[in-house]
């Protein structure tokens, strides 16, 4: 079914009901407003911020011996948990990203006008690379003696951030262009996160890991460039249809 954005009977704005809106803005007898302003919201939030602990912790590496055997350079103290947390974040993001692209592929194949078919093969390629990045990160976690099945705090928070992206792509009512925008948001965040991961690995003396991350980062750069281009094309195509 046609999903391109069209002019229609959108009822959400006040221009659709000017007479009713005028009545809404008239004063009502008996309505007593609470005095003050929104500063109380800040006070409540501040009190809870002061009283709240963190979302969770990074699990300690369970197999330090295994890490040494695998050749990873020793990580100790605070540094180790930061790297494990951030690798855990990327691992979770790439895993969800694979599913995001799988859902997007279905949408592209189902699109009525067939305009998405021109980049289907590339989307399949990106999807495979997302899965490969996930497996790379699993391996890195294992080399550090950490648990790749654990959900780290950064993975958890990024998961919360990303909830809307999957909702958009899997919604049968959204178009390829709208889905591409969600994927663009994912790729933008992903690119910066890989940059940080490369820096972190270098900072912590994990040269081999940094090299592998750099390659993944470069592939993600390509993903971003492609998605950005497809999104622009889809937007322009819609404007021509209109």
């Amino acid at each position, binding site marked *: 079914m046609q999903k391109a954005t069209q002019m229609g009977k959108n009822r959400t704005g006040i221009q659709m009901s000017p007479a009713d809106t005028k009545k809404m803005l008239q004063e*009502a007898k008996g309505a*007593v407003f*609470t005095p*003050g302003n929104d500063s*109380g919201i800040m006070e409540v939030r501040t*009190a809870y911020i002061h009283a709240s602990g963190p979302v969770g912790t990074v699990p300690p590496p369970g197999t330090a011996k295994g890490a040494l055997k695998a050749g990873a350079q020793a990580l100790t103290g605070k540094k180790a948990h930061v790297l494990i947390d951030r690798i855990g974040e990327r691992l979770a993001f790439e895993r969800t990203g694979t599913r995001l692209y799988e859902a997007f592929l279905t949408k592209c194949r189902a699109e009525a006008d067939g305009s998405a078919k021109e980049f289907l093969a590339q989307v399949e390629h990106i999807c495979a690379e997302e899965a490969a990045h996930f497996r790379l990160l699993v391996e890195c976690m294992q080399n550090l003696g950490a648990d790749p099945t654990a959900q780290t705090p950064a993975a958890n928070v990024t998961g919360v951030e990303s909830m809307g992206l999957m909702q958009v792509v899997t919604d049968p009512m959204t178009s390829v262009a709208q889905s591409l925008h969600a994927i663009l948001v994912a790729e933008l965040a992903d690119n910066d996160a890989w940059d940080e991961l490369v820096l972190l690995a270098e900072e912590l003396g994990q040269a081999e890991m940094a090299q592998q991350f750099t390659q993944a980062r470069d592939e993600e750069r390509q993903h971003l460039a492609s998605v950005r281009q497809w999104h622009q094309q889809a937007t322009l195509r819609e404007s021509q249809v209109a």
Partner: protein
Amino acid sequence: MASLLETKGTALERQNFTWRDMVQQPISKLDDDAYTRVMVILMNGIEMEAMRFSHSFARMCPDRELQLHLAKVRRKEAHQQAMVNWLLGADHSTLETTIGYEQVAIDITAAVAQKEPDPYLAQVYRYGLLEDFDHMYRYSALMDRLEGRDANNILQSYTDILPGRPTIEEHRDPADELRRHYDRSKAQPLSKLHALTIMAAEQQTQNFYQNVGPQYADPVARQLYAEIAHIEEQHVTQYESIIDPNETWMEKWLLHEATEVYTYHSCVAQEPNARIKAIWERFLDYELGHLNYVAELFKKHEKRDPMEVLPQKLPDPITVASQREFVRKVLAQEVDLRAKGADFVPKAQETEASRAYRDQLNADGSPSDTVAAGYKWMPGTELQRKAA
């Protein structure tokens, strides 16, 4: 519609679903009329109550055969509930759905209050109405100040966003929540249908708020949902107390089915979306099937005519439309009423028990006051005013 039991509807064994059939395309949050969403939410509440009642009955029913009849009808209600509730799209934020729930509470309760033949029950509805009216205002403030969204995108200018009876003052002692029930032998059938309809709507609202409150990260939102969920608990207590507890289980079952027929009939009469109207028509026929099924059981178990309980004909549909003028009139005249036992009294006569209960709950601050302090709705959110 002809005499209520003359229309047989769809027989139970022909009420079949597939998952694909049950899970259809949702309504459009942007393009559908706000009252299509209102009817979806209302009918979800009606179906949820049908199931909750049936489970309660089954748990108190030693008759194995009757338990099976309850289970058979209940299974159909479960299918219907899913099909109806799944019409809400995933693009509704929880707060947007909440605004829809309050629109139901305001406009459906106002419609019922005006048609209610019993003056005391009409007063009960008007009393509850002004409290839900205030909830709309508080949630709209939260939506604006938390998400930067305009509640009127959902309301479509049909329903006002103004303070009602302040939520901070709605917390009452349980003794001030129980009302007088109608008399099953004297009340008009319409009064019974009204009571079940509004109780069902309020019950689903309480369940919804108590379930979705923890989905928010923001402590202000978490507190507000906790607070308003407690008023909905009070409202369920109020509305279930107006129903005669002397009705037999079978009598109550029959009335539940009649309420479903009545409310689907109301939806059929007013639904502007043809695709959704077809669902209301289908389910009206299903509910007529349930009603006839239960009527036969009623005859067998109670040895009396179901028409002693049911209305001869369906009353006029519940009006599903803007109730702005009526609500404003009630607001001007009754905002300062308070509940004292089963009666409604001037503010000064409120009980010490309710004041003490409320003071204790609000001792660390009032979420509903905090979120809406100085809040006045304007189109496009209050940031429009700040920018001006």
